[in-house]
């Protein structure tokens, strides 16, 4: 039941992301993206391999239906999926992770969730902005864009994490 809820919210958020990409053209200055949190909050029985495949497909769908570059979101989202294990270890600790417990807001606490969202968003935006600018933007401009994107997206990711797995 919890998984169905997760899948529904996942799909809704992906569609929302596509719509936002198509209608709010602010990507030149900053990006708002909740996809990293969707990946790191995947159910615990989904292993890293499948998480990477899900991340790739999600990125492909987003890019395909958006006006952006095909492959860009996948390129940035797959490394986030690869980093799931260390992030889960950060959120839950080794013992709960060994028991295969899902990451929930109550179990992990806001600070750990926020920290993992920060890491996931940083990783995602570094790759995204780096590949998107393709060497045409200066280092400090790119850094500013990454910083703004992380600052704006991380709180949103925390909210989404609470929405996805409150308990």
């Amino acid at each position: 039941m919890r998984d169905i809820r997760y899948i529904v919210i996942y799909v809704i958020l992906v569609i929302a992301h596509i719509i936002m990409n198509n209608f709010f053209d602010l990507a030149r200055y900053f990006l708002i993206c909740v996809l990293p949190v969707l990946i790191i909050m995947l159910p615990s029985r989904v292993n890293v391999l499948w998480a990477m495949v899900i991340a790739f497909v999600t990125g492909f769908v987003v890019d395909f239906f958006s006006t952006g570059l095909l492959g860009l979101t996948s390129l940035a989202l797959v490394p986030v999926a690869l980093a799931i294990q260390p992030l889960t270890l950060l959120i839950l600790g080794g013992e709960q992770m060994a028991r295969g417990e899902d990451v929930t807001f109550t179990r992990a606490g806001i600070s750990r969730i926020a920290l993992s969202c920060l890491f996931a968003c940083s990783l995602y935006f570094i790759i995204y902005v780096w590949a998107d600018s393709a060497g045409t933007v200066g280092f400090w401009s790119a850094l500013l864009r990454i910083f703004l994107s992380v600052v704006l997206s991380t709180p949103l990711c925390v909210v989404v994490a609470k929405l996805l797995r409150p308990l």
Partner: protein
Amino acid sequence: MQQNGTPKAGLAVAAVFIVLEIAALSMLKSSSVLQNIWLNRFSHNVMALTWGGVSRLKDYTSLRHQNDILAGRNFELYKELSRYQDEEEQARSQALLDSVPGSRRFSFIPAEVTAMGTNTRHNYIILNKGSQDGVTPNSAIITPHGVVGIVQIVDKRYSYGLSLLNDKIVVSARIGREGIVAPLSWDGKNTKSAVLKNIPFHHKVAEGDTVLTSGMSSLYPPDIPIGITMGSRIVDGASNVVDVDLFLDFAALRYVIIAENKDRETIEELAR
């Protein structure tokens, strides 16, 4: 989240990650010209770095082979250098022979000083030519700049001689080309001076005259410059002794000529 602790699972994760990233990059490359150029440039840089590294590694591993080649080349160059040095040596010897005042009575053999003493009263000299080179005892040892000594003992490959810096050696010398003839011998003071003895009291010798071999012995060719006269003094109230400053620097001596008088035996026979 399920853990993938085994190495096999780790490899599978790495492989899937690489495949997915390559797929994403391929899509990105084909969807934008800018990204296409950027990725091409990036891949070229990576390739250049890789091939550069491989090339450096190859160079490093082939150093031993290169060293062998260089050692071989070094050996060849050394042989060539030796050949040139031999040729130069022969040319120098020939020049040395040509510079000696010629005489049909004498045969000359160039030689190199192997060892020489200068700090006793009976100094010797050893040369690198012996009987197999045609050297015979009682041959003169000279240079274009003076008399060196006389060969005393001859080995197959080396010769032992007494140098002028030996109080047993007496050379028949002349002051100037047409001056008085007198015996010259080492004064035992230093390697640059000798004395002319038995010069008649009435015979005045000017300072700065050249002293040459007289040619009046069966040993030394005539007119080899020996030195210049310095001061003179009366000895025993009967004769003059003239100090001679030698041209030859025994300390720097390396190449000499062994001169053999072909008519020596005949002359000595007649002198008896």
